[in-house]
Each structure stands twice: as structure tokens, then as C-alpha cells.
């Protein structure tokens, strides 16, 4: 292995306690299967973010930790992320991590908290917590992505920003029947926790964007796991359709 990539996990003690650490593990696992070495570098909020990494993973978490994280990132951390996005490094933003990249997100009592304004995205608080299996068709991967959502954010994309996928099950962004966001340097989603574990093809998109050839990557356990979750999500979606209702999103908003 001649090449090596650096994966920074952004302030995992604040954002990333719901299995989010799995995303960096899956990325490095698949990078190694592709013949590229990977170094995972968790960076605490008391340290500055390294400026030269290939991937920055920002996880989910509860309200107070989300606010503490955004406070830690304001200024120098946000500049580092903006520069990384400009030079083609990849940012994976899960749930609360997606929210803080936008202009505003809801605090503990629903009050607006200023985000990092790295994306034209606005989040406000929904009427109830959205919890359950979700699935979407994603043009980015050409496949069905599946995950588990557990949040109370309604996230609006502005300025023609593209979502990650169109919902076939569950709520995602809670508006427009889509989930997440995709730019050249950011993949954001409400599939919380280890989203890349259930969707190895999404991990491969990130690796390919870094110039890594993933065609030779084979991992039967990953394929079997992802296929099982897709089958479950499809049958749940079909069941809901038979009962004549979509996810709760349409009803709420």
C-alpha cells in the first residue's frame, strides 16, 4: 500500500455517540480492501481540526452536545472545513452533523441556534420525533439506501441544493419527501449512526471521489447485510402502501 488517506472524526465525544464511529471504520476497512491504507484520527473539541485530511466525519448527538460542538467549531474549525470542501476533501455529515453545517438549527427548547453556514440549509424543529427505518432511491449511488432515523429536525435545502435521495420509506429531511444533501464535497443524511455500514456503496462514492478505484472491493458480509436491510425496507414500504399511507411526513408538514 503506497497511498494512505486520513479520516478525521470531528469531536466524537460531542457528536458521534450513536455508533457514528462506525462510518470512519467502514471507510478505512473498504479503503484497505481497495489497497489504500487509512488512518482514522478522532479529534476532540479541545484540539484544532487538522487542515489536510481527506475525509471529515461529523456525527449525530443530542441537543446540548450539538450546541457545544458548533461552539467549538465556530471560527477556525469552520474555516478549516470550508477550505477542505473547496479543495475537494469529503465531509460526511450525519443528522445533527448535517444540521450544524447549515445556517440555523433548533436548540434544546426549539430556539434557533446559528450554524456554521457552510451549506444553504435551514433546520427547524418538527412537531414530533421521527423514529424508524428509512429508505430512499439515490441518484448518487443508483441504488436504494437504507438507514434508521431518530431526530426531530425539519431540514430545508435552498439554492437548488440536491438531496441524497427520494424517500421510499420514512421521513428523512421531513419536507419534500427527500433525505439529506449532496454536493461535490459533502454527503449529509438523516440515516443516523453507522450509515455507511448499511450502505457500502455510499462509502465507495466517498472513496472514488478521493480517486480510489473501488472496483476490486468485495466484502460478502457487507453485501449480505445491506441486501437484508433493503429487503426489509422494501417490504415495510409495500406494507405501508397497502395500508394506504405514506410516511408521517406528508401528514405533519
Amino acid at each position, binding site marked *: 500500500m503506497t497511498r494512505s488517506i486520513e479520516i478525521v472524526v470531528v469531536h466524537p*465525544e*460531542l457528536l458521534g*455517540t*450513536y*455508533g*457514528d*464511529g*462506525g462510518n470512519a*471504520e*467502514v471507510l478505512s*476497512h473498504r479503503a484497505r480492501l481497495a489497497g489504500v491504507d487509512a488512518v482514522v484520527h478522532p479529534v476532540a*473539541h*479541545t484540539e484544532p481540526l487538522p487542515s489536510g485530511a481527506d475525509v471529515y466525519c461529523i456525527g449525530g*448527538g*443530542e441537543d*446540548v*452536545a450539538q*450546541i*457545544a460542538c458548533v461552539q*467549538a467549531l465556530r471560527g477556525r474549525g469552520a474555516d478549516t472545513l470550508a477550505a477542505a470542501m473547496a479543495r475537494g476533501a469529503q465531509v460526511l455529515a450525519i443528522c445533527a452533523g448535517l444540521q450544524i453545517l447549515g445556517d440555523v438549527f433548533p436548540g434544546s427548547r426549539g430556539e434557533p441556534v446559528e450554524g456554521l453556514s457552510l451549506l444553504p440549509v435551514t433546520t427547524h424543529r418538527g412537531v414530533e420525533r421521527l*423514529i*424508524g*427505518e428509512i429508505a430512499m432511491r439515490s441518484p448518487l449511488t443508483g441504488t436504494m439506501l437504507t438507514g*434508521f432515523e*431518530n431526530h426531530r429536525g425539519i431540514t430545508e435545502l435552498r439554492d437548488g441544493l440536491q438531496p441524497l435521495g427520494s424517500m421510499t420509506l420514512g421521513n428523512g429531511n421531513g419536507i419534500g419527501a427527500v433525505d439529506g444533501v449532496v454536493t461535490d464535497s459533502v454527503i449529509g443524511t438523516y440515516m*443516523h*449512526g*453507522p450509515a455507511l*455500514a448499511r450502505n457500502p456503496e455510499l462509502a465507495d462514492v466517498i472513496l472514488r471521489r478521493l480517486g480510489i478505484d473501488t472496483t476490486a472491493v468485495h466484502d460478502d*458480509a*457487507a453485501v*449480505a*447485510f445491506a441486501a*437484508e436491510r433493503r429487503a426489509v425496507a422494501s417490504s415495510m414500504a409495500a406494507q405501508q402502501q397497502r395500508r394506504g399511507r405514506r410516511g408521517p411526513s406528508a401528514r405533519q408538514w
Partner: protein
Amino acid sequence: MSLRLRLGLVAAAAAGTASRLLGRGNGVAIAGRVLVAVAPSALRELAAGRRIVLVSGTNGKTSTTGLLASLLAPLGPVSTNGTGANLTGGIAAALAARPRAQTVALEVDEMHLPLMLDALQPQAVLLLNLSRDQLHRTQEVRVIANRWREALDRHPEVHAIIDYEDPFLAYVTQAHERTTRLGFGFRTHLDAACCPGCSHPLTWQPPRYHCAQCGLGGRSVHRTEQAAGAVERNAALAREAARWMGVADPPVDRTRDRVASLRLAGRDLHLRLVKNPASWTEALAHLPAGPVVLAVNARGVDGRDTSWLWDVDYTPLRGHDVVVTGERRLDAAYRIGVAGVPHRVAADLEQAVAALPSDQAITVLMSYTAYIAVAS
């Protein structure tokens, strides 16, 4: 005893018997629910004049309550809910079963603790730990901590016994004068990046976590005990509670883990219930030698989301013969594969056991619904 309570007891006994005859379980919970429906003041009446310790926390309630009840035996007959029936029904049933027992040790569900503090007027409350359970099932740890704190505010007379190394318990009892704080040496907490009180990021450095903003973690403990894990910590806390209730010199004893033994296809299985990241980490850190089966489900009470699998350190599994089963075996198999643990996958427990050598006892770590399916 009021007429209403007597009526309630008769109705409850009938409901319990009916439930058993219909094969719907042991009837404890339903009997208690009927009792409270017929006699809403039953809990208060049944608790009157008795000396009660409540035990609550995310993990270890059942085993610690069992140990505490046995430690309290020198004081006379003890009333306890030994089966883990820790909601209103089970608690009412336990109190009604031995109305003359003056000493009472009750396990209480986390969300029911405030209600039980109000209804039972206990002498003491033993708080073991608070950590994330299943997010979609219980609310955030912080919410429970706040409810506990409000409940203790209403009951300044109740004596609290806590593990001070858990910042959530430190927060719950921060303003509660009657508190015995035990220390067990530095350990981290997965869910306490931020102060449970003021939300400032906590500093995690030995000898203890500390909040630079509100000072949480800065008090001295009454005693520091050596404890290799949760089993020893809970035993020390139970001993402290027994001492406080008047047992002169409670013996050093271990809590009985929620472990069941089972013989299956000629092999000895030791089944162990593991239900959240904290209990998985604890079980893996104290794994006995020999083969291991992991049985992972994700139904209702297990938590329908398996993300937590990625929060657990699986390196203790290396060197063991490992088979993964359960309804979410593919989630678990992929997870431990990425962690570099060689393993096999089996469709069910029988096939998992058949895949292992027959000369050694097998440790089976099981999520709740998998455990209940074979252990009850």
C-alpha cells in the same frame, strides 16, 4: 387495611390466577395492575409503616435488588420484587405478597422512580447508574436525570446512596443533602460528554470528571472502594444500603448476574442478558474462557436500531471461538468482522451451538427478546 384495599387484593389474586391458568405468564404484573385499579391508594397503604429501599438505574437493577434483599435478611422477613417486575403492578404485587415483612427492597423502573418516591415514601433510594438504553424507547438520559432530581427535591427526607463516578447521579444528588457518595476510581462515561447540569463540556481526567462551569464532580466521596466492574460496584452499593438500613456488618457477596444456565444438544450454556452498550461492554470485558455465541435481536424492547453495535469494543472476543446468531445476526456479523474478530454465522441458537466444540461450556450473550425466548 381499608375495605377497598381488601377488595383489591381479592380481585388481584383472581386476576393473577386467571392469567397463570391461561398460560399468560406468572400473573404478577396483571395482579398488581388490577389491585391499583380497584384500590388507587393501594401502594400508599401497603407501604405505610414499612422501611423501604428503592433500587433504580439503567443496568443491574434486578441482580442488585436480589443481593440487597438477601443482605437485609438479618433485619427480619424482606418483601421484594425478585422477578424484575419493576412497574406499578409488580411493585404493588410484591408489597401485597408479604404484607407483614417490615423491610422492603424494591427494584423500580427508571421512569417510575419519581412516582414511587411519592407513593411509597421510602427511607432510602439506591441509584446504580444512568446511561443510554434504547433511544427510541426511553428518553434521553438527561431527561431521566432531571426527573430524578426533581423527585428528590420533593423528598429531602429520603437518603440517597449513589456511585459518584457517574456524573448523571452526581447531578441528580447535587443539591440533595442526605446522600452517601461512593467512589470507585476513574472511569469514563459514554453519554456524558457534556455536563448533565449546565451542558458545558466535561473534563475527563483522573482522578475524576469535572465541570469547569458549575463544579460538578468536585465533591469528595464518603469512601472509595476497589471494583473491577459493575458487578463489584453494585455489590458495594448494596452493602452500603444494607448498612444504612441497620445491618451491622453485611457480608461481602457478589450480585447474582442475570445469568441462566441451559443444557442444549448436550452442551452447557451460560446465558447472559445484555441490553445496551454499557452492558455489552461490561459483559465482553469479563468474558470467561471458552466459546461465545452472540444472539442479537432488535424487536421493541431490544431497541429497533442496531447502531449501538458500533459503540462497543469487541477486541475481548479475539481468541474465542465466536458464532453470531439472532434476528440481526448480519448487522452483528458485519460489525465484528470490521473489528477483526473471526466468526461464523448461524441461523439459530441450536445451529450456533452445534457449530462449536462440545467439550467446553458456551457463553451466550443475548439481547432481551432472545434471552426471554429461551431463559423463561
